[in-house]
């Protein structure tokens, strides 16, 4: 039993080790302890999806996890998408299709889309809705996001050929 514990994680390929309070959420761990502030916090009760990251390849709410629960895990955040400033095809698609306005929810959307397109390279409208139904955007009205996801799928398919 402890109130403080060492957490070792790999985030975007980099290993980190921090001794933290056990009550610290993964979102606060990433943002405050590691300085990875691209993951945003919108509601802290798991509804808005802004804080979505990938843990061991799966999208999760980083506000609904303790950092200690992620001990040993591989995590990917929005900072892990672009390569030395070159946008990932998903990011490129969101820019070209105007899939963002204020951009606060966007990191969560990008990570959810990353997971979706990883397992389903050519999703239907229905499948896109299903995977993004837990991500709230207050600006775009989702239409440009829908286009962005389809464009991203096409870009990724093109890259594979």
């Amino acid at each position, binding site marked *: 039993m402890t109130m403080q514990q060492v957490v070792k994680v790999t985030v975007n390929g980099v290993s980190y080790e921090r001794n933290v309070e056990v009550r610290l959420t993964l979102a606060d761990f990433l943002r405050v302890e590691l300085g990875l502030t691209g993951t*945003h916090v919108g*509601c*802290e009760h798991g*509804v808005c999806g802004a804080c979505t990251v990938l843990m061991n390849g799966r999208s999760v709410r980083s506000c609904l996890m303790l950092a200690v629960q992620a001990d040993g895990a591989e995590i990917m955040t929005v900072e892990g998408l672009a390569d030395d400033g070159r946008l990932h095809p998903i990011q490129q698609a969101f820019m070209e299709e105007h899939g963002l306005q204020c*951009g606060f*929810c966007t990191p969560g959307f990008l990570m959810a889309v990353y997971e979706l397109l990883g397992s389903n390279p050519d999703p239907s409208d229905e499948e896109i809705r299903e995977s993004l*139904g837990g991500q709230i*955007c207050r600006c775009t009205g989702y239409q*440009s996001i829908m286009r962005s996801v389809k464009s991203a799928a096409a870009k990724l398919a093109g890259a594979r050929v």
Partner: protein
Amino acid sequence: MAVDIPKSFAGLPATETKWVGRGVNRVEDPGLLTGRTEFVDNLVKPGMVHCAILRSPYAHARVISIDASKAEQLPGVVAVVSGEDARRWSNPAQTMPEGWGCYCLVVDKARFVGEPVAAVAAVNRYVAEDALELIDVEYEPLPVVAEAAAAAEAGGPLIFEDKPSNVMYQRVFNWGDVDAALARADHVFSESFRWHRLGANPMETFGVIAEWNPVDQSAVFQGSFQSQSHMGLGRAAVLGLPSHKVKMISQPHGGSFGGKGGFRGCDIAVLLSRKCGGRPVKYIEDRMEYLLAGASQAWDRHYQASLAVDNDGKVLALDVKLLDDLGATAEGFGAVSAAKPLAAFTGPYAIEVARYDLTLVATNKLPASPYRGMGPPPHNFVIEQLMDIAARELGLDAAEIRRRNYIPPEAFPYTIASGNEYDSGRYEAALDKVLEMSDYAGLRAEQARAREQGRYLGIGIASTIEPGVFDWNAYAIVGLPSTGVPEGVSVGIDILGKIYVKVGFSLEGQGQYTLACQLLADYFGVDISDIAVVYQDSHSAPPHFGPGGSRLGVAMTGAILGAAQLLKEKLIAMAAALMQTDAANLRMLDGMIGIEGVPEAQMHSAQVAATMLARSDLLPPGMDPNPECTYVWTAPGRTPADEEGRAKSYLTAANACHVVCVEVDPDTAMVEILSYYIADDCGTRLNPATVEGMTQGGVAQGVGAALLEEYVYDEEGQLLTSTFMDYLLPTINEVPMTQKAALVTPSPFTPLGAKGVGEGAIHTTPAAIMCAINDALAPLGVRAREVPASPNRLWKLMQEAKAG
């Protein structure tokens, strides 16, 4: 020097426009997409501590005592403040109407659940929240005023004891002889409506880092401010400081929609900073705080309205009585939302006579705040329901009654009954366009078939005006004396030829930095990537307001083109000296300054600017060496309000017509949106992709308003919707993917002919969906008069119909 802002692209010094008018990729996006944009919660300052706020659990209660000694002793706690500190170091909030404000922390009694009572600064937010639990507050609960109607009655509990009642404001505006029109009309259709509280909910809540400087008694606030200068003036008044002792630094922020708020958050954070000797104090409002006590709630309205109509469907008068529940205080500028409908009181219709009977009351709920649209969306809902009621009673089609009442294109500029002037528009053309897109006749045929099968299919049509480019005079009736809203920028060229523009607003989501780059790229014939948009704080920027009231796109276009013209003229004067010719012989085109008819006599504007900076010996006599010019734009032709509130206020009147088809499940009362069509006209589209985004985003918020979003209070003034589990924002599953068409009727009065469009479709969507629902329910003989039309409400209504 006379500045003549071009009213069309043809007026720009470019052979052809390559950037403005096109849906170019946004310069904001790479930073946002990679998580690099610095939202306020990303910032860390040396010595920074974190604020948490203790809030009243009662809607109305006297605070007898506060004991924070245990909290102060908790390791990690740096300072605790309460009402005593607020009284010592600050003033009550200034409000509209005047005199309905209080201190940022309760000094005598709490007036709504969630009102700040005390606050803690500690090493981190976790410890600060631990400390809140150690503060003992003794309350004496008081009787609660939970309902607007009860609040308006005499003899009940008073929310402000120094006032004779809870009525903040009451006035009747008569624009023409409404009673005569009602008496004269063939028909008068009357109905009551209820619009429940809803609000902005940007995905980023409010946040600030406040820093008190004990040496020179000044304050710096760095945070997510929609309008930094506006916010700064308010803070100076509350803190009793001269304006130059309050500096506001606006970070990029995650949306606002009018509802970012943060007045009390700033004030409390700076009191804490002062108490701990000037350490920076960060306050990040969490979502439950936002829902409970932020700038989250707007438009809590009870309407009684009548439409006087002749047999041929011609509307003679509109009579609207509004009881608006502003909550516990007037600190949130909720009154402005009740005044704004004056800018478009009669919608797109030529209704010459109107009345507005307006009562604003205080209750023990959260003070109301602005929200996108700022008041007209409920008003439009009322007008459009009345139009449909009239059509149904007269046996007219919903499209036809609107067609018969539109202001015709040749009537512009057109002054409406409530005093504002509409610049231009082709309302019938928009209607025809959307009817064609939607195959309206086909939809009606489908509806007829569905009805035969016992299905409730409904088609809604709504036509509205979006007032654009707000002016303070629009709110004169609730106490704003100003006319005009200045927006200033500085445009310059650096010594190596790159162009910059200094602005007094940060990123909020509307793509304004991109628009600045588009305009300047075309003006000076460079690539969009050659331009830097430089943010300036409230002390550095020229007079500015920033985004709000569908203004910034138009206003900043005016400011940038004005500054660019001044710069162009200065560069030409310099070039004339260098080329040893008269300035009148020179012109600038695509960034090259040359003598007309002499192709070889050319200098690039960047080269001229560099020469100004590097060769003072070549400057003409009397010219300073600064290739930078400032211009402050304000809307032309605005007039102060008369005694009946009439003014030329909002400069532009964009218009839209929506057609939506819904199906109401006869068993579950769930509403499904089957298809959605939009034709709109905001004049010249400076960035069509951005306009499309504004429109669709407004549709989403309109869907939320019509079907999902509602703040519910119980009779004790307790909020029952303090999480996103209960306050329901629309998701990708609820928002329709709309089909849109653009009409372009440029404004004759604005820079490049653009009209304000930032508030988008929220003006129209709730009205359209409610029209469709009522069309669906028409065979049952019932009307949905409450927004949102939740399944619970609709089911009850349908049950009543079945019961007869």
